[in-house]
């Protein structure tokens, strides 16, 4: 256990990914410490989501290695990966709720798949998770009856109900109104404090970065362009970074 403690929660070494003719990730190195919230910033299409999918084994690297809790998951067969994935939860950009199931069934699904059968314990775990995201009372609703923000929160509840050690957020606030965005940002922070999980938040929303980040990674052209604290990012004078923070495209009318 002590050896595991010393390992970073997530480590990526020289990750390359080609998707057809595109070379999306080009030798990316990254280490994320246990219990910290790392925000991954970058422009659309720079490979943020692709990186995230590698951390849970949904995509395989073209080259390079990925370690979770010190375990090399790069070449693990799919069935062995399933065990690793239970330690890592992922909130999808679209929330990816199962639309044929109610909110409660969505939350019960991962628990039942892990072998939990006791109805009382199931109920308690679901209530606890829904309570954390502030959606108690929505158990019987179908996903298509929920607003975008609520769907994200149910997705988050489904992610945390299995008590992962690490949560990956794929653009948690994209497409939400500013107030819901703020609520989700607080939720990410609160969950991190209460559950003591390692979090990776992929976003291009600076507010989310300022609110949630212990550390920031800025991706540019498939590589880590900057890694440091949020204050270091703010203090940066690099034009690529300052343009991104201030939202300047360099085009004029």
């Amino acid at each position, binding site marked *: 256990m002590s050896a595991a403690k010393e390992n970073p929660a997530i480590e990526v070494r020289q990750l390359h990914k080609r998707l057809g003719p595109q070379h999306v990730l080009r030798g990316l190195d990254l280490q994320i410490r246990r219990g910290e919230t790392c925000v991954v910033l970058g422009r659309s299409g720079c490979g943020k989501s692709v990186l995230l*999918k590698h951390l*849970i*084994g*949904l995509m395989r690297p073209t080259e390079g290695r990925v370690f979770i809790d010190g375990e090399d998951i790069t070449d693990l067969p*799919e*069935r062995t990966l*399933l*065990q690793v*994935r*239970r330690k*890592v*939860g*992922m909130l*999808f*950009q*679209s929330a*990816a*709720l*199962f*639309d044929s199931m109610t909110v409660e069934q969505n939350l019960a*699904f*991962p628990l039942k*798949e*892990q072998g939990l059968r006791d109805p009382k314990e199931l109920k308690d775990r679901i209530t606890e998770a829904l309570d954390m995201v502030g959606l108690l009372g929505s158990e019987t609703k179908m996903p298509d009856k929920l607003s975008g923000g609520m769907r994200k929160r149910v997705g988050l509840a*489904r992610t945390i109900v*299995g008590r992962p050690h690490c949560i990956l957020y794929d653009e948690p606030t994209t497409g939400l109104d500013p107030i819901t965005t703020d609520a989700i940002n607080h939720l990410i922070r609160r969950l991190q404090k209460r559950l003591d999980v390692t979090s990776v938040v992929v976003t291009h929303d600076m507010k989310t970065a300022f609110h949630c980040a212990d550390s920031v990674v800025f991706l540019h052209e498939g590589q880590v362009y900057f890694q440091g604290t949020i204050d270091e990012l703010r203090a940066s004078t690099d034009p690529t970074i300052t343009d991104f923070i201030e939202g300047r495209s360099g085009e004029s009318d």
Partner: protein
Amino acid sequence: MFTKLGHLAVSFATYLGELALLVRDTVMAVVVGRIRWRLVLNHIAEMGFRSQLVVTATGASTGAVFAAQTYFQFHKLGMDSAVGPVVSLSMFRELGPVLTGLMVAGRVGAAIAAELGTMKVTEQIDALRALGVQPVDYLVVPRAMALIVSMPLLVVECVGLSLVAGWFVGTQVLGIQEAFFLENMRRYTDTFDIAWTLSKGLVFGFIIVFMSCYEGLNAREGAVGVGRAPTEAVVRCSLSILVSNFFLSFGLNILFPTV
């Protein structure tokens, strides 16, 4: 021209290979994975039980018109009592399984491809994997088991109803003597013909479920992609059923020789 043909051959081989991998993964999942019996039952209800109407209606309609047309021709030759065996043998050996296959491909194959395709593009299949569940275990295995159980039964229903309809039209409407009709039907139809129809049903069930699941799991992004999946599934299943039926007929004739 030759390059085009070459590309076509390569993509066909790739398709067959990927299909074979899906079948392998499914068999592996049955061996090492957990079988979700409740889902299997749900799918039997959805795909088998609910397909009965369309399948029996097809059978009945075909049996009725087939008996009538055969009678119109045979009556001129004074062979009225041969209508029974002609209807029975064609339905058992060819039309029953093929028509059931085509109807089920249209109803069930399209539904499978559309459902899995939608799940694919809305990231629900990635979500399954992220939650530690193999999509093949959860989505393909129960459907495959359900359809492989249901298909032979549906074929039997289709053939059964066609015989009832043929009997009704032949003896009650067109006036063929019932005793001869039934006796000849019994004499020329034997256990082999039932084995024949069940085997074809099984094979067609196999074709429908795997080809449709494949189309769904490989659906492309967007409305066009999801729309194309069921269309492709129905077209490919139907063509495969028609082509494989030809070879099955020859193969089964060696296994269960009748001539």
